[in-house]
């Protein structure tokens, strides 16, 4: 499935804004993403498996916080990250 990558994480995807990854759950998808682009998962998900604060995942139009949520090959996944700060 297609995964949209926010700019702060594109150093991992060789600046690609959209990449492919596979998995039956969001967690699997992130694992696959990490296999393809080592290190990217830990920047988004902490060591206890929690999505880091201000990281958002969307499947289609639906925001997802539970990493066990199912995904299918036809889904478009969007990773978003707040850029608040100064």
């Amino acid at each position, binding site marked *: 499935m297609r995964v949209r990558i926010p700019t*702060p*994480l594109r150093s991992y995807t060789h600046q690609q804004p959209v990449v492919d990854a596979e998995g039956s759950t969001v967690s699997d998808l992130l694992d696959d993403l990490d296999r393809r682009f*080592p*290190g990217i998962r*830990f*920047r*988004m*998900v*902490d*060591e*206890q*498996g*929690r999505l*880091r*604060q*201000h*990281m958002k995942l969307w499947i289609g139009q639906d925001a997802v916080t539970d990493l066990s949520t199912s995904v299918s090959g036809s889904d478009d996944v969007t990773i978003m*990250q*707040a*850029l*608040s*700060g100064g």
Partner: protein
Amino acid sequence: MRLLVGTRKGLWAIGSDDRRAWSVGEPLFFGQIIQHAVADPRDGHTVLVATSTGHLGPTVMRSPDGGSTWSEASKPPAFPAGDRLGRALKTVFWLSPGNPDEAGTWYAGGASPQGLFRSEDGGDTWAPVSGWNDHPQWETWCEWPEENTPDGSMLHSVIVDPRDADHLYLGLSGGGVFESSDGGTGWAPLNKGVAADFLPEPDPEFGHDPHTVRMHPLMPDRLYQQNHCGIYRLDRPEERWTRIGDNMPPAIGDIGFPIELHPRDPDTAWVFPMDGTDVWPRTSVDGRPVAYVTRDAGVTWSPQSAGLPERAWFTVKRQAMTTDPGDPVGVYFGTTCGELWGSADEGASWTCIARHLPEIYSVEAA
């Protein structure tokens, strides 16, 4: 001669051949928060950088060639999955090379939680130091789950005895100084004689707020500490710190963040006092920046302000002051206003090396 300057917006390597004319390069890891950047004195070419952004998780970047090429730690510092307290590391705050006889060994301090992590492969993979992180007293000694330190609870000043790789010290803000003599399995507080004016007990065993702790490399039994409540020295095996900050001018006081040592003279140390009155502005006292040096292990102190601005309102954070190994020793500090100042004559005179950098968090000689 090169300085690694960690800032809120990236890392700068600033070099000089003569310590007078300095070249400020382009930023590395631009936009990322660099808490600490440290060169490995054991091999002269490895550099580790503690980095994060405002929202992404923490990590460590490493260079095997003095900064020409970089790669990310394949296993950054982290608590174990399924940790008994559900702890997740927010920031890698402090980096310390290990014992000289243990090439490739590093320690990292977290902020927060106040975790301790160790690498044995030059910073590529990190493991929690269970003896500290899972110590039965960890929840008592550390600020957990509540953080009382405004910028977050920190584990810093990880010190490895050059004579004995198993002999370690660390500092907690807040929490105090702790010592291990068995490689990090067992730990004990080491805070006798240190004030903790913000606690109700007159002489607590722990709960203090060391800002920086240093061991002299040639006299490893000598420790210096710049604490939230004063400047101290401890000559082991003594266990009671002496408040050498009582010898500072009363109008200046002995509050500050950094304390830095002369690499060859254990009696010489520099501090950068700050205003710890009222609501603690943490700028120089009366807005008049000045370093102080002692040449007699804290018995007397002398001001060093030649070249510094008459009035300024910056803070020098705990990792933002350092010395180099030159003769005479170079002394450097970075400010929250993004200025880097240096002295090639042991603090007798200061010049501004760089201006208009982001807020400076750390300065280390490489």
